[in-house]
Every structure is written in structure tokens, then in C-alpha cells.
């Protein structure tokens, strides 16, 4: 159960009189990330890497959002930063890892909902007052607001957005992959062309999140990183 606290203690040498001295608490640790969350996080990080890499290779086959005749290329993505080698290979990667991506996404969302653990990450109206102080701290050298739970309001906002982007990446993907069976999805997105544009845009939004996420991971250091591996965060700030 996330939120569980452990006190890490150190046994003390016996006193001169030979009496047992009570152990001293040297640190606290909080169980922040339940197993399912960590499992989904790491599987999905691999899946996302493959989806982006193969997606860019697929994009290379027609790097445009307009007509085929005349074709106006939007950008020439270098092959070195793509997965699959050619269109067919990239599609194999994309159509294989999308199931892994969807499965971990579903497992994650279901787990969060049924365990109640979603409260840890879900950005709600209660977090709104805390956004501006956090922005001031991160970007304008403001004082650090006290942390009372695992995630600060900006983190919650970022993670909630990432989950929404994940859902959108799947929906826009299906609108592109199955424009007949899910024609209503394409219609919602403004047509087949727009679905392709949205799918591409969502990828960049996810990459933007990942960049910010990785920067914050580096800034927060080892202790914080380990918590996504073991679940336990030593010396939490709250």
C-alpha cells in the first residue's frame, strides 16, 4: 500500500551499566510506488521508446500531411534516430509494441482506479492553489513550498497530462490505423488528415513531457530515482 512509512533504526551499544539502549531512528522511508505502478512504468518506458522510434520511421515513408501530388515534405527525419530500418520493419515494431503499450496503460489505469492510488497523481481542483507557488519556485527562484504528499501540484499536473496524452496517443493511433472501423474517431478529430496530425502532435507532446521528466529525475538525484525501482523513498521531503 503506498503511503506506508518505515522507520529505519540503528541498534545502540549497551550502556556502561549493561542496559539495553533503545534503538535510534536514523531515517524514514515511504512506500511511494506500488509494484504494478513500477512494472507499468518500466515496461511502458521501453514500449514508448519503440513506439516513437518506429513511428518516426513510418513517418519517413511520407513525411507530409498534405497531398501525395504534389508532395511537400515537412521534415526529413534522420534514419539513425528511427527504428525498423524500413517502412515494413517499422510497422512490425509499431504494431507489436502498441499492444504492450496499450496493455500496460490499461493495467496501470485500472490499478490506479481500483486501488485508490490515483489520488497520488491525479491533478484536481484542490491542487490549483499550489500551482503558482510551485511555478515560482521552479522557474523564478521563489521559496520552496512545503511538500505534504508524494507529488507537488505541478508534478500531479505533469503526470495527469502524461496519462491523458497516453490515452490520446492510442485514440489518434486507432483513428489512423482503423479509419473505417473507427470512423467516428477520425470524425471527432476532424478527419483522417487531422487524425494523422494529432497522432504526430501527441508524440511530440509526450517527448516534451519525457524531456522535462528526465531533467527532473536528474535534478532530484539518486534517492528519488531508486524509489521508482524499489518503491521505497528514503528521507522523503514530507
Amino acid at each position: 500500500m503506498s503511503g506506508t512509512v518505515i522507520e529505519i533504526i540503528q541498534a545502540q551499544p549497551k550502556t556502561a551499566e549493561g542496559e539495553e539502549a533503545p534503538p535510534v531512528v536514523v531515517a524514514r522511508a515511504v512506500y511511494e510506488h506500488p509494484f504494478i505502478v513500477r512494472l507499468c512504468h518500466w515496461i511502458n518506458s521501453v514500449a514508448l521508446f519503440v513506439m516513437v522510434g518506429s513511428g518516426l520511421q513510418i513517418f519517413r515513408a511520407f513525411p507530409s500531411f498534405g497531398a501525395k501530388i504534389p508532395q511537400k515534405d515537412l521534415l526529413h527525419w534522420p534514419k539513425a534516430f528511427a527504428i525498423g530500418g524500413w517502412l515494413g520493419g517499422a510497422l512490425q515494431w509499431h504494431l507489436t509494441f502498441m499492444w504492450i503499450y496499450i496493455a500496460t496503460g490499461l493495467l496501470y489505469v485500472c490499478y490506479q482506479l481500483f486501488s485508490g492510488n490515483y489520488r497520488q497523481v491525479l491533478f484536481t481542483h484542490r491542487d490549483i492553489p499550489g500551482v503558482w507557488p510551485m511555478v515560482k519556485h521552479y522557474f523564478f527562484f521563489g521559496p520552496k513550498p512545503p511538500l505534504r504528499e508524494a507529488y507537488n501540484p505541478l508534478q500531479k499536473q505533469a503526470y495527469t497530462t502524461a496519462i491523458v496524452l497516453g490515452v490520446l496517443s492510442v485514440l489518434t493511433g486507432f483513428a489512423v490505423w482503423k479509419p473505417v472501423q473507427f470512423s467516428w474517431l477520425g470524425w471527432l478529430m476532424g478527419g483522417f488528415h487531422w487524425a494523422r496530425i494529432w497522432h504526430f502532435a501527441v508524440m511530440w507532446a509526450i517527448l516534451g513531457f519525457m524531456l522535462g521528466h528526465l531533467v527532473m529525475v536528474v535534478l532530484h538525484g539518486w534517492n528519488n530515482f531508486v524509489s521508482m525501482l524499489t518503491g521505497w523513498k528514503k528521507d522523503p521531503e514530507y
Partner: protein
Amino acid sequence: MKNEGGKNNDRNRNDRQVDEKKFRQIGRRELLKLTPVLALGAFAIPKLQEGLLKKGLGFSDWASARMFRSGQLAPTFENADLAPLQKFPINGYDVDDPGVDLEHWTLTVSGAVQKPGEYKLAQVQSLPRYRQNTRHICVEGWDVIGRFGGARLSDFLNAIGADTSARYVTVNCADDYYESLDMATALHPQTLLCYEMYEQPLTREHGAPLRLQIPTKVGYKQAKYLTDLKVTNVLERVGYWEDQGYSWFYGL
């Protein structure tokens, strides 16, 4: 803030004390529980990679066939939405014009049918003609809205006395291209044996005299310059691009 109070209560209740050694043990145990993630590393092993990706593609095809609904029609468009014929891309794997003798052309029908043999274009054209403005989508990502006309493949299958409980319809082409269709797609009302585009006879580079036009499938499934059609339960050959590694079902 009610939540907060509850959390603190939980915290007090769950508080326990461990020494540092025990804490490290707990961490290691939790880390080991993540080892299933390493299974993804199998995709990085060259020997396993091809087989795994083939399985993944096969699963996608299986799921695609489940998602296919016979009653679900591809969107159709107004004439105003059509791309002009000269802006309809010409895509072939080999040559744009395989030099079909249009005068003496016949479609060779074989397999699980009551009336196998050579069929003339006029026989296909004697079936009810359907015209539809549909989106042609290429696996590469581009698409074009065109106007197609022809006979329903289902009507033709009916005319040749095909066993529609068979699994596949396969075709061979004048340019040595080959393709195969699942029967459900073959029987779909928008699946045409197409002999005209924009109400004109099919031009050579668009597959004269007869091609498949299937708005529920990606472009490479819609073979041009048909010469043979077979109804079968066994696939001798799957399809040209499928043999290069593309998906077989690729239903849209």
C-alpha cells in the same frame, strides 16, 4: 483535508521499524520483482527478434480481423471532395504498364467454384455496376479520395458459384503481383471488381482492365491488372508485400 487526516492515521498504524540491513533487503526484493521487464530484452536478440515481431504482426492481424464488421461501410464522399484523376497517384511495385492485351484479356477463375474458366470483361460488366467515392489509403501514409466503379466482388463470386464458406480469395496479376483476401472482406458490399475510375474505363497505369478496389483495406491489397482469381481454403502464396514483411489483413 479529510483525506490528509486519514492518511496520517494510516501512517501511524502502519509505522514499523527495521534496521538498515533489513531495509536494503526489502529494497532488493522489490527490485527483483521487476525482472519480468527484462523479458522485453528478447526483442534485442537478433535471433529472436524476427520471430517475435512476426508474432506481434500476426496478433495485430488477428485482432484486425476481429475488429472488421461486415456492415461497417467506409466513409463515402461528395464529388466535390474528389481529387482530380491526374492527381491520383500511380503506385506499382514494378511497372506502370505491364502490357496487357486488352482485346483478348480474360480472367481465369478457379478453385472452389461451380463455374471455373475464362471470364470476359463484358461478363463482369453485365453485373450491377456500383460507383463509390471513397478514400484510398496507402500504407505509406498518404491518401486520396477517388471515384471508382465496378461490380461487387460478392456478386461475381455469386455468379461463378463460389463456395463463400471458403476462407480466401486470391488473385494473380499481369505484372506478377499477387494478393489474397479474407472471405469476409471479399463479400463486403464496397469491395469491387473495379473497371472504371471517374466513370471512365480504367487506364493502364491504374490497372486496366480490372483491379480490386477495397475501401476497407490499405492500398497494396487492391491489386491491379488482374489475370487470375481463385477461391480457396489454402493460401499457396499470401501476397507480394506480405512476403516482404507487411501485414496480411491490414483492414482499415
